[in-house]
């Protein structure tokens, strides 16, 4: 059942992104920033966690989940070690993905060329 919820929620967030692209003048870059910030605000306020528990990767893998993970890490570390945790916690959940993107992205760029 969780797979269905993941499909529906993940699809719905992407559909919102598509509606933003089609009905406003925002570029894809602006749309991604908007969804990330919305996710970060919801995550910091604790509103994103119920959606995560309901839909799993449907809430986690869209870029809004990336934003929510930034806020969640900052808040969790701040509660653990005080105000400095706001800064050490930012990449607690997201840092691994960024490092993977940089490392393996560079490897791919070494061996592959853009198609066009």
């Amino acid at each position, binding site marked *: 059942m969780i797979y269905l919820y993941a499909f529906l929620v993940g699809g719905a967030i992407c559909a919102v992104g598509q509606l933003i692209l089609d009905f406003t003048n925002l570029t894809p870059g602006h749309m991604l*920033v908007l969804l990330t910030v919305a*996710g970060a605000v919801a995550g910091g306020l604790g509103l994103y966690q119920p959606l995560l528990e309901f839909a799993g990767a449907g809430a986690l893998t869209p870029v809004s989940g990336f934003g929510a993970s930034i806020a969640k890490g900052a808040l969790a570390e701040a509660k653990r070690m005080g105000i400095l945790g706001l800064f050490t916690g930012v990449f607690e959940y997201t840092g691994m993905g960024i490092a993977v993107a940089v490392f393996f992205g560079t490897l791919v760029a070494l061996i592959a060329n853009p198609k066009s």
Partner: protein
Amino acid sequence: MASQQAKKQVSRLPHMTQAAQEEKRRQLAYKELVQKRKPKPRYLRNVLVAFVVGGAIAALGQLVLGFLMSRGLDLNGASAPTLAVMILVGVIATGLGVYDELGEFAGAGAAVPITGFANTIVAAAMDFKREGWVLGMGAKMFIIAGPVIVYGTLAGVAVAFIKFMTSP
């Protein structure tokens, strides 16, 4: 066919001179031609494809998350590796040239999932390496992903700070 329809419409205006009628007929025929040639907005198709493709990528992510959780990790512990695995999937798909085609087909359905975030990084790295490894690839690989990290961090730290200060 188009001009016949226009002729019919104009012939209902007998008070006009011959030349004015001809002019009017041409305008109507031109309008019809423009209507016919203008690409129809495909809002419904776009949003449906984005929904299905984005949902499918999320379901794939759920496969990873479910596997990690079945190995004893909780939701928090499995979040970071799930994001990392999906980013790796996006990196490989971009290297194979598959993800750019998916992006053209699915729009936000390919851009919004974290695999699309990885795609922007790798695509920029491949594009800008010809400008040099340091000032090209190194400087510009986050040309689209950078703003996401910057504003995500700004909003995340600010809101977490407020929540931290106001919660007991």
